[in-house]
């Protein structure tokens, strides 16, 4: 067969198949991850909590009490001391509540940390709103300094009846190498 492109059916088919290959590669890198994030966002899967929340309904449902527990862990190799001021508190849905986390950098190096939240049960993830949180950005601590990291939250009034306890976990990662010295200094907490 000596037909030239685009009349050669073999060439035409090969081009189509090649385009499918490119399409699947694009799908894997540029479509699947955002799709996964969107899916987790909608369903609350993987316990990621949302971004900064604007209060829409200030009514407090005093008939219910939700027990909120706080857990903190350091990722491997993170030397900071990091933990919540209190281990748990009881709140009414709709009530504005606040908890402080304490972080201190006992090392001789200036460092930057990033706290990543995860929440169980997953079904509660979309009903736990943060109006203010240190986890929205990175925390820089100079050598030997410490800081109080506040977090303000509201449990949604529409949280399903069967959820009585929410556990919020923060894992602290060392992200120092993502920042230059100048960036670190401009971000640094003043300390206590």
């Amino acid at each position, binding site marked *: 067969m000596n037909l030239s492109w685009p009349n050669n*059916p*073999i060439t035409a*088919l*090969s081009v189509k*198949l*090649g385009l*499918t*290959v*490119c*399409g*699947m*590669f694009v*799908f*894997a*890198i540029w479509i*699947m*991850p955002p799709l*996964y*994030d969107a899916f*987790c966002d909608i*369903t609350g*899967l*993987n316990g*990621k909590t949302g971004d900064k929340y604007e209060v829409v309904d200030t009514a407090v449902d005093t008939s219910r009490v939700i027990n909120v527990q706080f857990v903190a862990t350091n*990722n491997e190799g993170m030397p900071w001391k990091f933990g919540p001021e209190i281990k748990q508190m009881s709140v009414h849905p709709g009530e504005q509540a606040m908890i402080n986390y304490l972080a201190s950098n006992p090392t001789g190096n200036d460092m930057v940390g*990033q706290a*990543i939240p995860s929440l169980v049960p*997953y079904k509660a993830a979309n009903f736990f709103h943060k109006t203010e949180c240190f986890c929205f950005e990175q925390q820089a601590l100079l050598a030997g300094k410490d800081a109080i990291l506040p977090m303000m939250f509201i449990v949604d009034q529409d949280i399903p009846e069967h959820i009585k306890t929410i556990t919020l976990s923060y*894992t602290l*990662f*060392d*992200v120092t190498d*993502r920042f230059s010295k100048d960036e670190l200094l401009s971000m640094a907490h003043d300390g206590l």
Partner: protein
Amino acid sequence: MAHGPAKGFTRWLYTTNHKDIGSMYLWFSFAMFFLGGMFALVIRAELFQPGLQIVEPNFFNQMTTMHGLVMVFGAVMPAFVGLANWMVPLMIGAPDMALPRMNNWSFWILPFAFAMLSSTLFMQGGAPNFGWTFYAPLSTTYAPPSVTFFIFAIHIMGASSIMGAINIIATILNMRAPGMTLMKMPLFVWTWLITAFLLIAVMPVLAGVVTMMLMDIHFGTSFFDAAGGGDPVLFQHVFWFFGHPEVYIMILPAFGIVSAIIPTFARKPLFGYASMVYATAAIAILSFVVWAHHMFTVGMPIAGELFFMWATMLISVPTGVKVFNWVATMFKGSMTFETPMLFSIAFVILFTIGGFSGLMLAIAPADFQYHDTYFVVAHFHYVLVPGAIFSITAGVYYWLPKWCGNMYNETMGKIHFWLAFIGLNVTFFPMHFSGLAGMPRRIPDYNLMFADWNMISSVGAFLFGAAQVVFLYNVIATIVSGKKATDEVWDNPEGLEWTVASPAPYHTFAEPPEVK
């Protein structure tokens, strides 16, 4: 058309002949089969007794990783592509593959990919040690520096497979002899057509996942790094979206091979041809919606667990149709038990056992106990060794007389079969027991309570390895000094490949045959 083959070594470098390229693929995969087998024997030698005897734990992990990678990408996949190169044009009455130069290229990049992958064994920090599934962050944050070589090796293997797949689809859809309608194609051609579409769909996803790893490691992205807003679980989803169709890529051509062999030695036409085609297509389509059954324990909602559990169990329906058809083909046939038939019957029995343990693993609540134990190892070796390896072996014995013109030694073939059959079952059957008792996979040392089963497994593994040496000897002896084979080779076999001379001339079907 009297010209060729060319003389000297450049014949193999420059060849665009489907038979030459098919032979190179087969020899390459044979070499990789022995390399991967040696890695496996290092694993089994270390596990012969509890405690650390022979290798360091880190080297042990490199062995499990390299064994998996070499066997999957180096032995099984190139062997099937080699069989496709040899047999697809002969079976559909085409003179060659549709894209012969690309065919040469897709073979010749493979040795470079595996040279690169194997070279990591000699690098500082050692070879990849994170398992063939290379879960992030083991393969990103905690990986040895050689991981970059691993990533590029995977890219090259992927490119090779994709080009091979495009070539096979283009050949099958455009170059069939007049009268060879789709529903007259031999099942090996059908299963390879469907496999090629699976390759086109998922090999780019594998390339994508290793590219994301590369960017996470070297370019500061955070696809799989929680600290930067990514998610390691995403890795598992993307990987298994590739990985599950991949396991069917390694089994569908095997279905085609045994569907060619069983009718020949049962002396009956294949039972339920059309249902075989539809079952193959159904398995391929279902393979895209079951990936998360590999990750029941990551913390999925109950709806997800149930969906993936049922979808997985649904696959046993088309697979059951196939097993039924093979048994029905043999039923009341006048069967003889030459080596290809022995391997094919063993395929049907042992693959079914592997299928049943797969059903057990598909039960989401039970999987929480089986997950990451030797039960999983037993399961996938029961589907891959008797599935892929036995079918390839059966295919080699079945078509070798056509390829080289000489008949293999039947006695030695039977010795090979029985050694392999016994070795395989002695190796892998006890793993069901050690797995159910709780022995985790990928560990160099284990609790004393698992000692007996592990010792038996190790003995079986060396027996299985010895059987393959018999195989190698038999193949070489056949080519060098085998008795002359007839053109038909077997007793009235079906298919165009038996209408050409033995050995198959360098150029066949320059004039398309008439298919009735």
